[in-house]
């Protein structure tokens, strides 16, 4: 039964991934990408990674997609469709894609996968106790460093988006 669920999700992922790269309208590509990310969250639920699935839904499907939609809407001529590439380019791209698929498939089929039965699901409580413990094997220092990384990202975003206004302020001060 879970196998059927996996194939449904995999089918949705493959179909919408192809739709996302082949759609010639930007906003539609983004929405197809949203479906792909939601289906990946479904895969995580399927293997009992509930916390990771929740993160996938809130951060990727909820946050990153909103960011991409806004950056698409910032583009000047959004109503224009993507131009079709020249035939020579299309052939070269198709060849490159086929070579890529070939490399990946030969790697997958030549590798000897070992199936390990794993019944212990990682719960949110496990993640939390690992994050907060300061004993051996705890992640309290990375946990606190994450906030510094987020702070740096926030300051960087503000400086990039507000760059001109900040410069004006400083010029006024110099004058």
């Amino acid at each position: 039964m879970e196998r059927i669920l996996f194939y449904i999700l995999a089918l949705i992922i493959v179909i919408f991934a192809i739709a996302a790269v082949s759609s010639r309208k930007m906003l539609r590509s983004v929405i197809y990408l949203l479906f792909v990310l939601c289906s990946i969250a479904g895969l995580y639920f399927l293997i009992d990674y509930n916390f990771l699935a929740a993160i996938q839904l809130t951060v990727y499907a909820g946050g990153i997609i909103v960011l991409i939609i806004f950056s698409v809407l910032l583009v000047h001529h959004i109503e224009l469709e993507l131009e079709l590439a020249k035939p020579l380019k299309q052939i070269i791209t198709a060849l490159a894609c086929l070579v890529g698929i070939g490399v990946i498939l030969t790697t997958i089929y030549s590798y000897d996968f070992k199936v390990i039965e794993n019944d212990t699901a990682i719960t949110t409580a496990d993640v939390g106790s690992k994050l907060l413990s300061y004993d051996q094997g705890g992640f309290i220092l990375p946990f606190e460093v994450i906030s510094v990384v987020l702070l740096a990202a926030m300051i960087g975003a503000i400086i990039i988006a507000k760059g001109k206004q900040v410069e004006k302020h400083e010029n006024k001060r110099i004058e």
Partner: protein
Amino acid sequence: MGSEAIIVFFLAGVVLVAGSNFLSNLISHKSDNAQKREPYESGMKTIGPTWVQFKVGYYLFAILFLIFDVEVAFLVPWAVVFQDFGGVAFIEIIIFLFILGLGLLYAWKKGALKWE
């Protein structure tokens, strides 16, 4: 139960949506003309392109939202084990929130939260 229920739910959803679309397509009266495909603008003829470029302010708010979104993602596992750890966890999360609060303070100070 479990995965069977999800598959039944999925199929029911597909059948309901596709079925109602198909039925309404089958039964409904169809009329098509050029005016019908125009974007609606209070009954007037649309002037100029209907796509407008968004202000960069939206992007800034989206980035700030994303950062606090990630913060919430780290607050959830903390909240789950908070009672087991007690006071230490409280101090740890206060440090975490304080450092992020500095970012919010910076955004406030630089006027990033102001709508222009």
